[in-house]
């Protein structure tokens, strides 16, 4: 006679339900089925909606989307300015970051010191202070009146300090044996950077750089304090004109999320990729 399954129906049912919501430590090695992932994501969103709904319901807020929706163009213009400012600042800050990272490795002690001072001061002080200082002190001293230029420059100097450290980390991840090989075949210092260090370091640098770009986009909102017509400043104007708060801040949050979320996902993908290759 065939042996009969000894586990009861109730036990098996309980196990298959549990499998949809929970993984034991050993099971975490395996990927759950896509529909289990989907169910749980929906569940998470439902939970969050519930919290949000409860919070807003107890607020007794009079929603007035009509007043705000008339300013849609104003939002769009601010949003595009934010993209423009962030993109320009990213290019500039990458240049600054790479240069200062290289200065940090230079033979001249004073250049190393300068680079170190730059990185530590900028990373250690609030961006808000830097923007005010750059605009009210530095820019007015040199009679630079274009706010956008000041804003982009300040933002670039700010994230340049972080990028400098990311780049330095990338360069230093290249082992001494690689540098030895490069020297042994007779490459010059510049050639070593060009053909050996940078092509390898870029894999380490890129995820950090992408993550930095996401931060940069959000940080550009602080430029609103010097009245640059970017996304946040424009949203605040609409808020003031229409006496609305959440009707401007919710689109604002979504507008930033639309920009940063793809970058964050891309960063995670890059990080996974570099992990697999090493």
């Amino acid at each position, binding site marked *: 006679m065939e042996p009969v399954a000894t586990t009861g129906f109730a036990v098996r049912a309980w196990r298959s339900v549990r499998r949809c919501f929970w993984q034991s430590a050993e099971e975490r090695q395996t990927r759950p089925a896509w529909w289990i992932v989907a169910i749980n994501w929906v569940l998470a969103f439902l939970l969050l909606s519930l919290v949000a709904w409860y919070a807003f319901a107890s607020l007794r807020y009079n929603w007035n989307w009509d007043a705000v929706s008339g300013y849609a163009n104003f939002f769009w213009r601010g949003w595009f300015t934010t993209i423009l400012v962030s993109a320009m600042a990213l290019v500039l800050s990458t240049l600054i970051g790479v240069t200062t990272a290289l200065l940090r490795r230079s033979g001249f002690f004073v250049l190393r010191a300068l680079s170190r001072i730059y990185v530590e001061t900028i990373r250690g002080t609030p961006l808000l202070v830097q923007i005010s200082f750059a605009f009210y002190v530095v820019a007015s001293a040199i009679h630079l009146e274009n706010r956008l230029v000041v804003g982009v420059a300040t933002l670039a100097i700010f994230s340049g300090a972080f990028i400098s450290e990311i780049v330095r980390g990338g360069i230093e991840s290249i*082992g001494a*044996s*690689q540098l*030895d*090989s490069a*020297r*042994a*075949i*007779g*490459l*010059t210092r510049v*050639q070593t950077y060009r*053909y*050996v260090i940078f*092509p*390898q370091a870029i*894999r380490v640098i890129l995820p950090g750089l992408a993550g930095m770009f996401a931060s940069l986009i959000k940080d550009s909102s602080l430029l609103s304090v010097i009245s640059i017509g970017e996304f946040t400043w424009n949203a605040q104007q609409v808020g003031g004109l229409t006496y609305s708060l959440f009707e401007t801040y919710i689109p604002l949050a979504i507008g930033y999320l639309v920009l940063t979320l793809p970058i964050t996902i891309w960063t995670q993908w890059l990080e996974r990729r570099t992990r697999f*290759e090493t």
Partner: protein
Amino acid sequence: MKLEIRNLSKSFGKQLVLGDITLLLEKVHTLALIGPSGGGKSTLLRVIAGLERPDQGEVWLNDNEIVFQEKLLREHRRTVGTVFQSFNLFPHLTAFANVTLPLEKVHQYTPQKARESATEILERFQLMEHAHKQPAQLSGGQRQRIAIARAVAIKPKLLLFDEPTSALDPEMTGEVLDLIEELREEGRDFVLVTHQMGFARRVADQIAILGQGRIVECGPPAQVLDQPKEEVTRQFLSRILKY
């Protein structure tokens, strides 16, 4: 080649690695440097390779002095082929590109000419089937043979091997040693740091034993390995040959 070393010293901090080494080899094809670890053999090889600057002393290669000045050293490095213990290859380049890189960027070959040279050498070493692979896709032995191909492709006047098989699994040392022996039969000059006594005996025409920063003994393999004059050599050999 003719190799002459006069009063060579090198310290790293307080650690004396080479202490006043003098050596004259009038006509030698293959010099093997052996000895206990920390004895200075790798450092001596790196000085000859132009990778390490001595504190004192002179190195003459075929009656030309190696001038330890960065710019001239770079010129010198371009004329010798160095193969290290491991991690020689550039991991972001294919095996083929690893061979062509120095040809194009250092030796000013045209891309076409570099490809031809690389193809020729890889075919001769029977590595052409691996040419398109990245180093990570190759076995340790294959990687080391590609590294040797890269060093040979530049037509060096001298090849330098720094423990070329120490980082390899035992079953892969064979293929690398076979290749080195082949190069020996072609009449190439080289200096080799190794722990493989049997191999040193087979390929070397001179063996130098280095210990505690000095050359303890130097001579043909039969003499140094079979009738060592010095106590240090005897101790070293008995320790090595014990297992």
